[in-house]
């Protein structure tokens, strides 16, 4: 027997996400102050969100509607009877010393969403991620630490309660995620869903979407989970992925060198690209939840539930499947087009009139998206209507204009709108597909460039492109490129 070294242990990560989404309501969850972001500190405050004695919080009806819609979109069971609870802890971001949240009877439970990762070869890899629960709660205020840029060194803190009482839903996933990429995709899918529903803007920079990650590693094949670490402070999907990848490496290295993983909360440091311990003792937190006596329970009747369910839009995963199976688009194209609901709807309105959905998809994902990004506009801002875009697609499709002409006139259509067909006719841009007319232009191009013709004859055949360019120049780009190529080749070879 040979004495081979023991096989290297393979590890896998077990990851779950807690996602907080700010709901797009006008006012706070339990009081009538504004939820506007970025206002002067402590302008959106009132006695309720400040926790003054004797005040009575009252639930914002939009918060319940949005939470239920999000729960339905995440395939959850909606609780017919739900209530709020007090979560007690002392921290100055909460003026009441408790947060109103939901504990044992959350509004929604037992759901799932589907993530789709597109592999390097373009094939989609789909995975269902469980949703443990979704509950409603109030956000806390914002602290600015004085005397130091770090909490531990500061001598005092300043508090802005504009955000206190802003409505949130917290969505807790099952520990079904196995990599940073899966986790980032899960978070993006949550954002797509809440945006499709119109219940949250999902803006990570403004903190409307925040993800905390729970992560442990274990040898592949082991049932039991390793010690769990929580990571906070990621403010982009990319940061979520990188923080997880860093943490997986850190935990595996620690285990291999015989260290014990501490159950703790760690912060992602974007600058240093690493996680650091927050040095907060775990196990000492005891939130002593109890039912919130100031708020009555919430009951959702079957009729109300049906009404909200019927108001749900088609969701991104369903759209992706439909684009792939019914329209024959690639998983990549389907993903890009469905990322934003308004773009997907624009695309669908276009292909209702256009023959070629791939062509329409290419124009929307290419030139139109490029224009929107460069001008920082949304699809709703452009003057080009879906039916005019459909005309443009059909003009390309039936060879009336070339792809190049289409791209040339697109900026004008985007800004001024109007009919694509009329613009093409008015500008005389109809493609020249008449053999006689093209041959005349070809003859002219050859006669005008004897030196290039000589070189071509001597074997420099890549000058074909030069001649095509000359013909295009003469015809103002209107020559049918395919036919021009073919006729030129025939002509040049007959002269050779």
């Amino acid at each position, binding site marked *: 027997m040979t004495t081979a070294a023991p096989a290297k242990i393979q590890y896998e990560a077990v990851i779950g996400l807690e996602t907080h989404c700010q709901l797009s309501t006008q006012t706070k969850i339990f009081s009538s102050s504004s939820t506007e972001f970025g206002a002067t500190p*402590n302008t959106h405050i009132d006695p309720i969100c400040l926790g003054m004695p004797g005040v009575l919080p*009252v*639930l914002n*009806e939009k918060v319940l509607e949005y939470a239920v819609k999000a729960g339905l979109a995440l395939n959850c069971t909606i609780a017919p009877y739900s209530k709020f609870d007090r979560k007690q802890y002392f921290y*100055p971001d909460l003026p009441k010393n408790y947060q109103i949240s939901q504990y044992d009877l959350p509004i929604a439970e037992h759901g799932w969403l589907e993530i789709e990762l597109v592999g390097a070869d373009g094939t989609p890899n789909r995975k269902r991620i469980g949703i443990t629960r979704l509950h409603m709660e109030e956000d806390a205020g914002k*602290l*600015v630490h004085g005397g130091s840029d770090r909490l*531990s060194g500061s001598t005092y803190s300043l508090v802005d309660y504009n955000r206190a009482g802003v409505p949130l839903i917290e969505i807790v996933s099952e520990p079904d995620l196995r990599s940073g990429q899966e986790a980032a995709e899960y978070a993006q899918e949550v954002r797509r869903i809440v945006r499709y529903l119109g219940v949250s803007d999902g803006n990570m920079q403004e903190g409307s979407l925040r993800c905390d990650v729970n992560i442990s590693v274990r040898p592949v094949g082991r049932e039991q989970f390793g010690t769990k670490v929580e990571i906070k402070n990621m403010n982009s999907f990319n940061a979520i992925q990188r923080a997880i990848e860093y943490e997986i490496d850190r935990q595996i290295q620690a285990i291999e060198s015989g260290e014990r993983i501490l159950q703790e909360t760690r912060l992602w440091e974007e600058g240093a690209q690493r996680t650091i311990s927050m040095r907060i003792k775990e196990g000492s937190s*005891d939130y002593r939840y109890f039912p919130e006596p100031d708020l009555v329970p919430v009951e959702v009747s079957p009729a109300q539930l049906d009404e909200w369910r019927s108001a749900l839009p088609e969701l991104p995963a369903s759209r992706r499947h439909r684009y792939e199976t019914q329209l024959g688009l690639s998983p990549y194209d389907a993903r890009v087009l469905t990322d934003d609901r308004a773009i997907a709807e624009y695309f669908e309105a276009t292909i209702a009139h256009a023959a070629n959905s791939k062509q329409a998809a290419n124009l929307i994902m290419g030139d139109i998206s490029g224009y929107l990004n460069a001008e920082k506009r949304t699809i709703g801002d452009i003057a080009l209507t879906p039916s005019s875009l459909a005309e443009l697609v059909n003009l390309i499709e039936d060879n009336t204009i070339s792809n190049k002409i289409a791209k040339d006139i697109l900026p004008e259509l985007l800004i001024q709108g109007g009919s694509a067909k009329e613009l093409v006719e008015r500008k005389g841009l109809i493609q020249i597909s008449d053999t006689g007319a093209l041959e005349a232009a070809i003859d002219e191009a050859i006669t005008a460039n004897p030196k290039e013709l000589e070189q071509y004859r001597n074997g420099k055949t890549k000058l074909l492109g030069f001649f095509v360019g000359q013909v295009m120049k003469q015809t103002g780009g209107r020559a049918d490129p395919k036919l021009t190529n073919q006729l030129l080749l025939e002509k040049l070879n007959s002269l050779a």
Partner: protein
Amino acid sequence: MIDREQVRKVAHLARLDLTEAEEVQFTTQLSSILEYIEQLSELDTTNVVPTTRAIEGSNVMRADELIHHADREAMLECAPDRVGDYFKVPKIMNEES
């Protein structure tokens, strides 16, 4: 029923400083309160739905309508300390970790 250690823990969570005498006193008092309440467990509640509230009613809600609260300055002035637009609070964390 409840021991001194539990009293200390609850006091810590509520940020209460208790003297030794108070700890002893509250251990006895809390124990007798809990024992008194414990009598309820003699009842058969097998078919009773857990109650979360003592009064009837559900779904008291308000419309999502903005009402600006006018007394901002009065609210800021209620705090023991402030700096401009902010409420000011003492140091949050101890230096040692």
